[in-house]
């Protein structure tokens, strides 16, 4: 076959190409993480790494294991569905180590006003006051117990989380 008479330079080039491809495969096998493609076009292990992020908010279930007394006060009041850390802040560290990490008591003047300051943007049924007119500068807890703020007989809780 005279066509392939002078094909040596082409074969050498093809050989080079094959070699480069093999090198590519080896480098790729080395560089691409093992879990890449496990679930899709991404590193499968990333899911576990993201799930390993430390927790800051312990969750109300954790609080209730020790503070059952507060739960008893809360459960019939208007704040029955307000989770502990909504007011007390992130306390996973306290839940992990209750003796050394002590939570700071929230400042009710700022805390209550954050939710209950009257505004036209808030839902109409939500209890709202103009703090300056409402309390005459007295702290909220003079009249309201934060865990069960209603002042009458235990009110049935309305709204709030499940």
């Amino acid at each position: 076959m005279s066509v392939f008479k002078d094909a040596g330079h082409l074969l050498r080039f093809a050989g080079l190409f094959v070699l480069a491809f093999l090198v590519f495969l080896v480098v790729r096998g080395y560089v691409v993480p093992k879990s890449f493609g496990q679930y899709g076009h991404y590193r499968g292990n990333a899911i576990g790494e993201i799930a390993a992020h430390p927790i800051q908010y312990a969750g109300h279930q954790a609080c209730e294991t020790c503070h059952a007394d507060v739960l008893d006060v809360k459960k019939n009041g208007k704040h029955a569905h307000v989770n502990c850390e909504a007011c007390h802040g992130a306390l996973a560290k306290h839940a992990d180590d209750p003796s050394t990490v002590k939570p700071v008591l929230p400042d009710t003047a700022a805390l209550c006003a954050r939710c209950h300051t009257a505004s036209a943007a808030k839902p109409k049924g939500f209890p709202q006051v103009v703090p300056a007119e409402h309390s005459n500068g007295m702290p909220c807890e003079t009249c309201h117990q934060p865990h069960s703020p209603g002042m009458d007989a235990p009110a049935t809780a309305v709204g709030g989380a499940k």
Partner: protein
Amino acid sequence: MKITRRQMLILLPAAAVAWESVLAGTPEASPNYKMADHWWSMLIDIPKCIGCGNCVRACQAENDVPDGYFRTWVERYNVSDEDMTNPHVISPDGGKEGFPVAQEDGEKYFFVPKMCNHCADSPCTQVCPVGATFESPDGVALVDQTYCLGCAYCVQACPYGCRYIHPVKKVADKCTLCYHRITKGLTTACCEACPTGARQLADLKNPKDPIHEFLKTHSVQVLKPYMATGAKVFYNGLDGSVR
């Protein structure tokens, strides 16, 4: 102490059983979590939102979100009767410290919490050139920050403005739907901190989740439905002026 083969045969299964119970007692290890059993979404009940900013602060504390950046934020809409298509929207510092008092002036005011919609067909994950962002098998849009180049294609692609480049890490950052919490049986930090239940984590694959009843009985909308992103953050009572 010498352990015979007989003792070893008894001890090994006993140790295995004991280890099982140890694992069961530590939710952090989440060994029982199966991605195939979940399809996460969120319900935002606008008529319940009071704009306190608890969710924004909780998110920043839980996820080390840098100041001035937000994985979730709250907007206050002010819509006048005459000009519904041009609402006046404010979100001072993402609503983190609440909002200025709105006076009763006859116009419509309401709060809209915003966050990643964890779209089933997310535009952000489609544009990633390196496979650093993806929709997890349980329906959460996540970023592999060790793989991300920081090109910010995804930041531009998100129609909801839910992504940013982390100012220190220089990689894409976004809401993970508190993936580290929901895989351990906890709710998200924003839901945990919401005092009125305006935000509810929902698992669409769980037939007992109250989300199914809610979706059936309420007028629910997602943001920018015309973009067909498969958004999974459902808004109850969403006003037509919200974008």
